[in-house]
């Protein structure tokens, strides 16, 4: 089973990467950029067919390791 995890910075947390990327894009001529935020996208292949346990496990992985809950939010998606 393939799961997708999206990790994004919390709303009010400074995203230095995002703002530098936004500036670069603007200087490349993409003038209608309003904001850019950079996060992580993690694909996890799990050896299980049970969506429910998988979902529980994936959330646990995020809490324990993948996301830094001090500054990040996460979202889990299972195909």
């Amino acid at each position, binding site marked *: 089973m393939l799961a997708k995890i999206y990790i994004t910075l919390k709303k009010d947390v400074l995203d230095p990467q995002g703002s530098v990327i936004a500036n670069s894009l603007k200087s*490349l001529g993409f003038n209608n950029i309003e904001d850019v935020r*950079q996060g992580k996208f993690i694909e996890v292949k799990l050896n299980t067919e049970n969506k429910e346990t998988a979902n529980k496990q994936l959330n646990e992985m995020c809490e324990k390791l993948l996301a830094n809950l001090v500054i990040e939010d996460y979202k889990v998606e299972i195909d």
Partner: protein
Amino acid sequence: MKSHVIVFPGSNCDRDVAVAIKNISGHQPQMVWHKESSINQSDLIVVPGGFSYGDYLRCGAMASTSPIMQDVVKKAKEGVPVLGICNGFQILIESGLLDGALMRNSSLSFICRDILIKPKNQSSVFTKKTQVAKMPIAHNEGNFFVTSEQLKKIQDNDQIAFQYCDENGNVSEHSNPNGSLENIAGILNENKNVLGMMPHPERAAELAHGCEDGKTIFESILN
């Protein structure tokens, strides 16, 4: 002899490389701000180390789109020697002057220490004077990667400038600090007038550095 050092907002080895060039050649290189759009006639353009735009997104990616890099690419194609060190190497790759990609070190951590390299290509304007040489590396993303077709191409065309090695010049996994394919520490373009390398010759360029092996690269290109 006229040389130029490109300065991005996050460059931090620009001064170091200028000092090395001055000490070795007697000439003061001209510093060129990234927002400028062209460089005068030049015998050597150096893209120095640092964190050009914080190294956000991907090292060197944003620098490669800056106005000055368009001119560096143009000059390089006209045959002007261009040397990219560390972040400069990353920028040259991102701007398409050199093949491949520089990925995160296999240890996943920043590495700052002395390593040994030896030239594979021994005839280019940059590499012809260097033997097994000691100099520092200091990077997070120096893990060189190319596809197997590209590798074959750069091998066949003698574009591998330097490889990480041991005291005796042996190239082995043991002497590879960052996971680079074929222990590649530096590569040349097809015409051999563009060199990108991860190690810092400017940090091994005078007695106070404890080692002067880096001088040979500058001597080779500056004289």
